């Protein structure tokens, strides 16, 4: 009697995912040993990939991007969350607007930042000139190193509020009695921060940081909409690289070989960094 619900509850819905995603993935794996004309070429696609400087650059930028985005969003989000928690008035108002940037899709956000970061007509350059921060208009999206900074800033600016909301909730789960006691025994706000808030929030900090990093590794939408991976390939991440070879150039086998290598890298990374955390989530 108990077997039947399990079959329908677990096996059926889960196999929907396996059939629509995991099976195609393995079909792709088999295709990655062929040339576009259907000739078996063994590991040649993979060997070409190892020599492909554009792929290694994309890989490097993906990890830099995800690392910077995750670290900045975690630290600033934590500080913002604690600040919002300390507000006596206006806290509910702030909470209600924090989700507005989160609601804007990364695609629309990318287009909006194309407008705002435009070298000649953008509002960002205008404000920075007016306030005297810069002397001449910066080419936010045209200069390769500046464009890398721009996509990271764009990403952080959009979802830092969301990260703050997560930390705000975590902070409000700390029992207020702890602070009352420590204040009674003479601790100041900084001591409270370092000896109560930070240690108690450590699990949340770790958890949110890792999740933000994992999701930032997958980013596609914003970079595609904002720079398209340019100028040149300066801001190309691995997902854009795969999309470019496959959908745009029609070189599916090569793109799939890249996908396979990319999933192996993620698998390895997950195994090393994510699994201690995983265990905690499972248990």
């Amino acid at each position: 009697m108990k077997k039947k619900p399990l079959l329908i509850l677990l096996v059926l819905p889960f196999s929907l995912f396996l059939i629509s995603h995991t099976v195609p993935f393995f079909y792709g794996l088999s295709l990655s040993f062929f040339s576009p004309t259907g000739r078996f070429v063994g590991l040649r696609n993979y060997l070409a990939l190892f020599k492909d400087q554009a792929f290694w650059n994309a890989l490097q930028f993906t990890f830099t991007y995800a690392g910077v985005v995750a670290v900045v969003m975690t630290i600033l989000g934590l500080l913002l969350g604690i600040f919002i928690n300390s507000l006596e008035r206006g806290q509910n108002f702030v909470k209600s607007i924090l989700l507005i940037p989160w609601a804007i899709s990364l695609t629309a956000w990318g287009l909006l930042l194309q407008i705002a970061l435009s070298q000649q007509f953008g509002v960002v350059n205008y404000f920075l000139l007016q306030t005297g921060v810069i002397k001449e208009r910066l080419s936010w999206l045209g200069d390769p190193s500046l464009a890398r900074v721009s996509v990271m800033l764009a990403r952080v600016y959009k979802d830092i509020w969301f990260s703050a909301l997560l930390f705000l909730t975590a902070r409000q789960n700390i029992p207020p009695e702890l602070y009352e006691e420590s204040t009674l025994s003479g601790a100041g706000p900084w001591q409270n921060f370092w000896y109560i808030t930070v240690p108690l929030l450590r699990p949340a900090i770790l958890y949110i940081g890792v999740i933000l990093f994992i999701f930032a590794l997958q980013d596609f939408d914003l970079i595609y909409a904002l720079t398209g991976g340019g100028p040149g390939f300066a801001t190309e991440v691995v997902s854009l690289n795969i999309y470019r070879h496959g959908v745009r150039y029609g070189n599916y086998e090569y793109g799939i070989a890249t996908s396979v290598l990319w999933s192996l890298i993620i698998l390895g990374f997950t195994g090393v960094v994510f699994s201690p955390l995983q265990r905690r989530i499972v248990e």
Partner: protein
Amino acid sequence: MKRRRQVWESGLKFLGLVVITVLTLFPLYWMINVSLLPEKEVIRSIPHLFPSPAVSTFKSYVEILAKYEVPRYLLNSIVIVLSASVITLFSSFAVAYALAKYRFRLRNFTQYFIIWLVTLPWVVYVLPIFIIASRLGLLDSHILMILLYGFSGIPLFSWFALPYLYSFPNELIDAGRLDGCSEWGIVLRIVIPALRNVLIALFILRFVWAYNDLLYSLSFTFHRAKMIMPALLEFPGYLDIPFAKMAAGGFLAVLPIIIIVIVFQKYVVSGLVGQTFK
């Protein structure tokens, strides 16, 4: 001395409040502002900081609605994502319920497997799915997009639903069994009504994420089933970048989600935040 410090403190807090408000609302404001300006007035080195009545116009909206079939793309997105979210919600709820409330072999393995699937980027599926869908003649069809968005969210949303189901009291389920409820009756009459708010929250979350997604919609829809996010990217041409039209299209595309997030704010926060700290 103490009072002076308090004045300082509340002053700084007020300042922080203002800064946060300005920073969070400015992007949306700027999108609306630019969308209401004629293209000529956007391209100037001293930008209009607000759409003064002297120059503002709805011309960009009229043009993109007439020229780019924006309403059809919006409708495609909403129909596809709405149907897909129903599929994701019930499938992942079922998976999470089975994992949390039944003992069976491979249970732990399945949980690890799901978390590993969550960390695997979507992009690794795009090319194989593209090839298979084109062989089956399913590219650019509504049904393909409904199934893809419906199924792709199953690992992530099972994982989201799992903590709620773990903490769901077993006593309620056992009481149901004692009262002679079937296993299905328990799910339908006890668990689902009790977790109604969680289900609403996860549904909204799935809707927002699938609606905002670009990767699948860009790779698999071209004309018939074209969705709004890839359609937005068509406004910039090769030679000209029509800022006002981009802003107008962007605003129309984000409006449904902004409304949903404002109306169902409570659910969004609990859906996202609740599971993290359970």
